[in-house]
């Protein structure tokens, strides 16, 4: 083993912490990301609630393709792909975000035969949940990374 002093070790740990902070800064989601994702989900909710099955299936395909493109665009933009959260706080924030998206989808799919107004309200709630809860998850995740960097 190389002879490493306590001072050298501290300096190396500082470099590790700096890298953590840099990752946290890079994981800033582009402004268009969550509104675009929200619109994709909202159109799926509306399609499943208002349109015939073949068109609803097409709208689900649009979500799959669109979400894939969004993830690819985000990765190209940031130069990194985020890990699945391994802390309780980030995991909880992700679960709340996912629930905000999935609950309107599940209501429309499972309940069925809803009034058009109800469907549009659910679509709007999916859009709002995505736009509001997505950045909250990002913020919690970045805070976790910064907190580890400071530890």
């Amino acid at each position, binding site marked *: 083993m*190389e002879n490493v002093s*306590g001072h050298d070790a*501290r300096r190396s*740990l500082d*470099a590790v912490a700096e890298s953590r902070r*840099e990752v946290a800064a*890079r994981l800033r989601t582009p402004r268009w990301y969550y509104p675009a994702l929200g619109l994709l989900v909202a159109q799926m909710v509306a399609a499943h609630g208002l349109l015939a099955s073949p068109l609803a299936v097409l709208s689900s395909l649009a979500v799959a393709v669109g979400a894939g493109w969004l993830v690819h665009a985000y990765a190209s933009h940031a*130069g990194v792909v985020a*890990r699945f959260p391994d802390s309780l706080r980030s995991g909880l924030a992700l679960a709340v975000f996912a629930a905000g998206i999935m609950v309107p989808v599940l209501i429309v799919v499972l309940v069925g035969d809803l009034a058009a107004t109800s469907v549009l309200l659910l679509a709007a709630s999916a859009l709002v949940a995505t736009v509001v809860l997505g950045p909250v998850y990002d913020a919690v995740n970045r805070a976790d*990374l910064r907190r580890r960097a400071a530890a």
Partner: protein
Amino acid sequence: MSVPRFDEVVHAPNRLQICALLVAVDRAEFATLRESLGVADSVLSKHLKVLVDAGYVVLAKPAGHGRVRTWASITGSGRTAFAGHVAELQRLAATADPSSVEAGTERY
């Protein structure tokens, strides 16, 4: 908490930074690592090759539209080696400065 274990492969400053960045993400692009380290392509390539040869990092060049980008991600053994090395650094730092012993509880 990881078992403190000094790792010569991870210890070099540039490789330590590469590992520190990669453990925090699923994968990172070559250009991102280069910008983060502030080194030339050839220097980064050399360090990545050492990490790849040690089985700590894997590189991928996904086919797709536009220019081909190289993505790096840390392996399970790389994550273990990095965590053990950081634990050893924390132990050494705590020996020199007992007030920094708190950092020894951090999980990577």
